Structure formats: structure tokens, C-alpha cells
């Protein structure tokens, strides 16, 4: 990749972030905050060892979610259902992990497998609806998200999978220490970096490898670039939809695991964080479905989330960060669209010029 290309691909996200900073500055200014003080407080708080650890942990979760979304995006499939897939996958995995009393090397793979299987199965419903009945995956996954919520509250409240797990909250059986991935005190003595970060990195590497180095990945990208050309090249488009959706759902199933295996109360409770799926969509867009780009996107997002915690003390609503994130996403998709249109045009020009030069130097 030439330096020019790298610059080109960085231009859009950087511009989007800059633009969102401007918007946020204007908003803060309009409501009478000291903009500099606010940003300074965020920077100081956000770079403490504790915050950085929290950031890495949150980014781990976000990264997995974004990869799950990105693999769908790569072939124009919208898995809006990551939310439901990870919650259902997480609950089932937690329930299984809580019931196992085995050494970690056995228990943890089983837990991960259950999460993947359940996430994939839940996405499989949408995959079947799309390939067999022609139902748009956008609508079906939204519906499945809500159904998953109902299933989870039913299971935890009304079946014996659920029990009092933490203060005043019902959840699954607490996962025994053997089955956890608590991680290491890398940056701060008081708080650990999730062990699951290893799995997240592995997922990223695999994602890159499968997409860019395997025939399957090529088929998938080709389907995304041109469904008709892919089909003429021998890709079975229906099968592709199903497989991609299953993979996406499988990865999505793992989104809850970093928290579940690395954080108190080691149980899937009714208070388990929701909304990681939608964050994943935003980060996949920001990172342009690129494994490295997504990593930067996840870290940025997590940094904003963590450092925003200080804002309430500064008397600025910390939701200013959510606004900033929303603006980033909107700005970045507009920017990418404009960049894409320009790139196609400018490459044509460049090729024309390069050929003209070649010709004139040859003659």
C-alpha cells in the first residue's frame, strides 16, 4: 500500500472525528461550559492506569461486536441483531459455565463454544428467513433482538436457570473461579486487563486471514462488491448468505464473554450491559470493516466512554460523548461515501495520465 493510499483511507475518519470535535465544542460553548477544561479533564482522567485498563476491557467487547457486524457488512448483509445474539449467547454460555466444575482448559472452551453456537443459531433464524423466504435481515434481526430479550427475562426470572446472583438481581449461577478468564494487572495494580482480550485479538487476526487469504473470504468480498459477478464466478449466493450470517452470529455470541468471564459478578444477570451490538455497528462503520481500523475505532469509542465518567463531576452531562459518537458515525459515513465517489473518478484520471506519460516517453 502506498503512502498516498494510507493517507486517503485515514482522511475520512480523521475528518469525521475533527468535525465531531467542532460540533461538540460548539454545543459545550453554547451551554456555557469551559471547553478547554472539559477536554482537559477527560484527557487526564482517561489516561490514568485504571481508566486505560477499563478502556482496553471495553474495547475488547466492542471489537468483537464490531467484527461480527463487519463480516456481514463485507457482503452487504446488515446484522442489526448482534445485540440479541450476544445477550442470548452470553446467557446460555453463562448458565453452562456456571454449572461446570471442570478445569479452565476444558471449561472455558466449552463456554466459548456454547456462546458461538447459540449466537449462530439465533442469527441462523434470520439467515433462514432471508434465504428461504426472502425476508430482509434488517427487520428480522430487529425483531429477533426483542424476542431474545423476552426469552432471557423469562429464563432468568421464571426458570431455575436464574437465581439471586448479585445484590438484588437475579442471574445465572455464578461461574466458578476455574471457568473464568480474569486476566492480568498489566497497567494498574487495582484492576485487571480482561483475559478475553487474547481471544479478541485472535478473532481479529482470523477475520483478516479468512477475508484476505482464503477462497471463502474472496467469495464473500466478491459477493459484497457485485452479487451478479460473484454468482457468475461460481458463488452460491444463498449459501453465502447463510454461512456469513452464521459466522457473524457466532462471533456476536462471544461479545458478552469478556465481561462475563472477567468481571464481577461472573454471572449473566438481568442487569447485564445491553447495547454492545449497536456500538459494534458504529465501530464497524468507523473502522471501515478493516480489522486494524476497527481496533482503533473500538479504542477511541471505549476511551470516550470511559473518560466521559468524569464529566458529571465537571457538571457537564456525560452524554455529550454519545452525541460526539453519533456525529462521528454520521460524518464518517458521509465522508466515506464522498471519498468512494472521488476515488473511482480520480483513479480513472490517474490511469489515463500514467498511460499518456508512458506512451509519450516510449515514442
Amino acid at each position, binding site marked *: 500500500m502506498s503512502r498516498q493510499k494510507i493517507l486517503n483511507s485515514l482522511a475520512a475518519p480523521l475528518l469525521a472525528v475533527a468535525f465531531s470535535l467542532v460540533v461538540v465544542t460548539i454545543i459545550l460553548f453554547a451551554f456555557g461550559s469551559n471547553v478547554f477544561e472539559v477536554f482537559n479533564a477527560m484527557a487526564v482522567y482517561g489516561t490514568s492506569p485504571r481508566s486505560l485498563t477499563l478502556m482496553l476491557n471495553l474495547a475488547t467487547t466492542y471489537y468483537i461486536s464490531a467484527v461480527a457486524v463487519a463480516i456481514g457488512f463485507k457482503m452487504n448483509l446488515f446484522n442489526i441483531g448482534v445485540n440479541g445474539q450476544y445477550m442470548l449467547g452470553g446467557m446460555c454460555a453463562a448458565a453452562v459455565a456456571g454449572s461446570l466444575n471442570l478445569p479452565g482448559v476444558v471449561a472455558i472452551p466449552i463456554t466459548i463454544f456454547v456462546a458461538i453456537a447459540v449466537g449462530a443459531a439465533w442469527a441462523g433464524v434470520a439467515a433462514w428467513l432471508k434465504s428461504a423466504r426472502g425476508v430482509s435481515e434488517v427487520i428480522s434481526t430487529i425483531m429477533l433482538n426483542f424476542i431474545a430479550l423476552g426469552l432471557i427475562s423469562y429464563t432468568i426470572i421464571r426458570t431455575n436457570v436464574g437465581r439471586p446472583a448479585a445484590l438484588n438481581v437475579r442471574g445465572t449461577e455464578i461461574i466458578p473461579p476455574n471457568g473464568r478468564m480474569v486476566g492480568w494487572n498489566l497497567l494498574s495494580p487495582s484492576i485487571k486487563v480482561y483475559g478475553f482480550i487474547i481471544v479478541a485479538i485472535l478473532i481479529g487476526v482470523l477475520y483478516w486471514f479468512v477475508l484476505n487469504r482464503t477462497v471463502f473470504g474472496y467469495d464473500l468480498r466478491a459477493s459484497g462488491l457485485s452479487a451478479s459477478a460473484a454468482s457468475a464466478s461460481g458463488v452460491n449466493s444463498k449459501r453465502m448468505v447463510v454461512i456469513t450470517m452464521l459466522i457473524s452470529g457466532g462471533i456476536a455470541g462471544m461479545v458478552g464473554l469478556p465481561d462475563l468471564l472477567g468481571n464481577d459478578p461472573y454471572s449473566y444477570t438481568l442487569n447485564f450491559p445491553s447495547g454492545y451490538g449497536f456500538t459494534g455497528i458504529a465501530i464497524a462503520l468507523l473502522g471501515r470493516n478493516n480489522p486494524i481500523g476497527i481496533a482503533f475505532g473500538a479504542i477511541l469509542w471505549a476511551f470516550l466512554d470511559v473518560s466521559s465518567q468524569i464529566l458529571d463531576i465537571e457538571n457537564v452531562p456525560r452524554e455529550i460523548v454519545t452525541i460526539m459518537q453519533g456525529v462521528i458515525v454520521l460524518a464518517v459515513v458521509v465522508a466515506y461515501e464522498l471519498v468512494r465517489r472521488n476515488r*473511482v473518478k480520480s483513479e480513472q484520471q490517474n490511469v489515463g495520465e500514467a498511460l499518456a506519460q508512458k506512451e509519450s516517453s516510449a515514442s
Partner: protein
Amino acid sequence: MIDAPVAVKLAGIWKRFPGVIANSDINLDVRRGSVHAIVGENGAGKSTLMKILYGMQKPDEGTIAINGNEVIFHSPSDAIDAGIGMVHQHFMLADNLTVLENIILGSEPTKRGVINQQTALTRLTQLAQQYGLDVPFNSFVSELGVGARQRIEILKVLYRGASILILDEPTAVLVPHEVDELFSALSDLKAEGITILFISHKLDEVLAIADEISVIRAGSTVATVDPRTQKVSADDLAEMMVGSELPTPETRGSTVTDEVIIDVRNLSVLTAAGKPLVDDVSFKIHAGEILGIAGVEGNGQAEIVDALMGIIKSSGVLIYNGGDISKWSTRKRREQGFGFIPEDRMRQGLLLEAPLWENKMLGHQTLKPNSNGFLLTPADAKNDTARIIDEYDVRTPSIDVFASALSGGNQQKLIVGREMSSDPKFLLAAHPTRGVDVGAQSAIWDHLRKARESGLAVLLISADLDELIGLSDTIKVLLRGKFVADANPVTVTPQELGTAMTGVKKSDGIEAAS
């Protein structure tokens, strides 16, 4: 008729696109109340000319005069205001709106914003009766067939008060009795003083309906004839259309062996509505043989190709190297030696927003040197891309640019190179030299000939009759999904072939289909 005033006068029209001159010095007089046909080969510049007349494109030079007044059109709206209406080859209709809604859209009769259905219906019923254009006004367009859709398009234009009607290949999608209905409607329109420009390359139909015929070749008007007074035959027209072209491909000596590579038995393709697009077609191609299919576009060629590639559903039996492969997937077919040069490279042949070396893998991604079946081998693929670019003279600064950055001819050379490199046993080549410059054209012909000599079986589809005659060992003529004639490429002339394609008659080089 000849004395009627001129309704449309085009004088000295020029239109250039990068690298192509679409229209060069077009001159045309169309008289009021006449049917004026414009004939020419694909790519002769008919469509561009009509787009200019309809305000969709601006001429670089030349003038347009409507009823004696010189006009400049900035958009179709200007043309509509000047009384020009166009019926596009691809209908511009909204399926989920009713016929009435489709027609009145944009010019609704209203009372304080509310559509006055009754006024519209009365007006349309009257128009429909006047010109014999019967359509069910309250049905949804999605429920109607092509014939009715075309009548809607014509009504749409008449409803807006057009007095000059452009019909772009109006019969291409119609079955014979629908063609008769259309022609009788056109006669009624003519009788009411409407001027009709009729674009076609079906010469028998042109002769049946036109009062005057203008022939366009290579962007210029080469002749205007009056079939009523001048004795002119379909052969004469075909000759004028084709002219004498520069390079002619020629295949010397037969390399046809008796080894049957592909044996197609009773191939049929149906539309969703059950209408046959390909109707019980059978043929064999031997090793070292090029079978050419001649036919006006839209008569089932594209469907034959897609069916053989396994991209669309079809019925019939496909024998390849002696085995029944009807159930094989597209991928299996490609892996086992099917090469494919698609008709529309943008749609089926390229990933426009991917680099050349990835495009080089397309269709062969499971094979060496692109992959080992599971893992890609980008280094090998890139080397091989560089080789193709060199051997097939693809003009590009690097193999990393997007395919969209190349010119059409260079894209085509890349595709031809890619398909030839996979060592195919059977090649489906649809318009292999379309949009390619003269030099590249003969290079592609050379490659096809060489492959044929080494035992390749080729199914060749081309609108370029010289190419078809020059390369093929056998020619079959396809009309409305069926083979209607065989031609011997040694003896047949492009004129005879062009005539046979329209289903007119048989002549020396043409025999009834076997």
C-alpha cells in the same frame, strides 16, 4: 406524403465521447404524419441520436428544428414541451402504481390538489379508443404483460400531447401478435397526424411499417430511402447497414475434430410467468470448433449463456465430455474447464472496485495459480496477472488499480486473458470484442483462433456479423428463443445472415435449422 412539412429536422449533428465518435454529421428530415424508421447495427449511434433528440444529451455540433423552429433542449422536459415523446426500450413504469396513475403522473388533472379521476379516465378512454390502445386503467402495472406496458408508455406520451413519437426498438420484447397490434396502433396514430420515429434493426418489420427509412452506419446517416417508391429489399438495407468494414477475421482451415465436448439437449429457459425465453434448443460443439449464434439481441442468447454457466434455472440435459453435468453448480463447471466471457462485463465479469489482480482471480478463485482450493496464493496470482497484462497488452500503470479505472477495451482484454489462462475446454464468449478498439480486436481474434487450434470448443455470440462469419465453423440463427436457420460461414454473407436473423426468408447461404 413526401410533400408533408418537415416535423423534425436534424442537421449536422456531431457527438463525441472520450475515445468514441457516436454521431458524425447526422442529417435527418422527418415529415409530419409519417413513420420514419432509423435502422443500423448495434453501436451505430442510433440511441445516442435519439437521446439527443429527447434532450437527454446535448450535441457537440449541429441543430435541431421542430416544425421549422430551431430548438435547444436542456432536459427531457424541454423536449416534452416541444411535443416530443419517447417510449424507451426499457419501460419506465412503476409496477405498484395503477395504469392510470402511471400515465397521469406529473400532469394530473386536479381540483385543489385532489386528483380528478373521472376527468383523467374520460380523457384516457377517449385517447385509447381513438388510437386503438386498449389497457385496463385501474389495474396495477405489475399485473400486465409487455404488450400492455408498451401501450401504456405510448398513452403516457400521447396524454402529454406529443405530436412526435420516438419508439426505441419497440418490437424487441413483443411476440408476433403483439407486433401486429402495435403496428395497427401506429397506423392509427399516423392517420391522426402524429409523427413517428421508429428505431429498429428488424428489417422486415421496418419494411412493413415505415414510410421512409434512414440508415445509420458508424455514426453517420448513409442513406434515406422511401420503400413505397424505391424498390428496396431487406438485403439492400442489410448491405447499407453493414457496409464494408475494415479488418475481417478469418479462420483458415478447419480444426474441428469428432470429439464432442459439449452436447446440449432440449435446453429451455422460462420467465417467471412461464413464457419461454429459450425454447427447446439442442446443439453440439466439438473440440476445435467454434459455434456461432447469430441473432438480434434479446432473442435468448443471454439466457442460453447463463443457463450453460448454471447461473439461471433451465430444463434440458447438458452433456460435457460424455457425462451428464446438468446438475453441476456454476463453480463446478468453471473448475472443470468452462471459460466465460460475459456479454456485460460490468455486471458479470468484473469487480469494479477491486484491484486488477483480484479481478484476475474472479471465476477461477478455487484454482491455481490463484489458490490451492482453500487458501489464496496472492503472490502467484499477482505474477500471473502481470503476465496477462503483458501478453494481452492490457494498458495499465499497475496491477493494483481498480478495474473501474481501465478503459472498456482494456477491461475486456483482461477478461479474455483471464479466461484463456485457465486452460478452458469449453469457452462461452459473448460479444468478445464489443467496445474494443481495432488493434485489440484482432488480438482477441488471434487468441480465440489459437485456442481453437489447440482443441478448444467455443460458443460464440456476437452482434458483429463479420466476426461471427469469420471465426465460426458453424453458425446457427436464433429467433425468439429457437434456432430458425443454419448458415455456412464459408458461403454466407453478412447481408444474408442479417436478413435471416429477422426471420424473413432463406437464401443461398442459409438452410432451415437442422
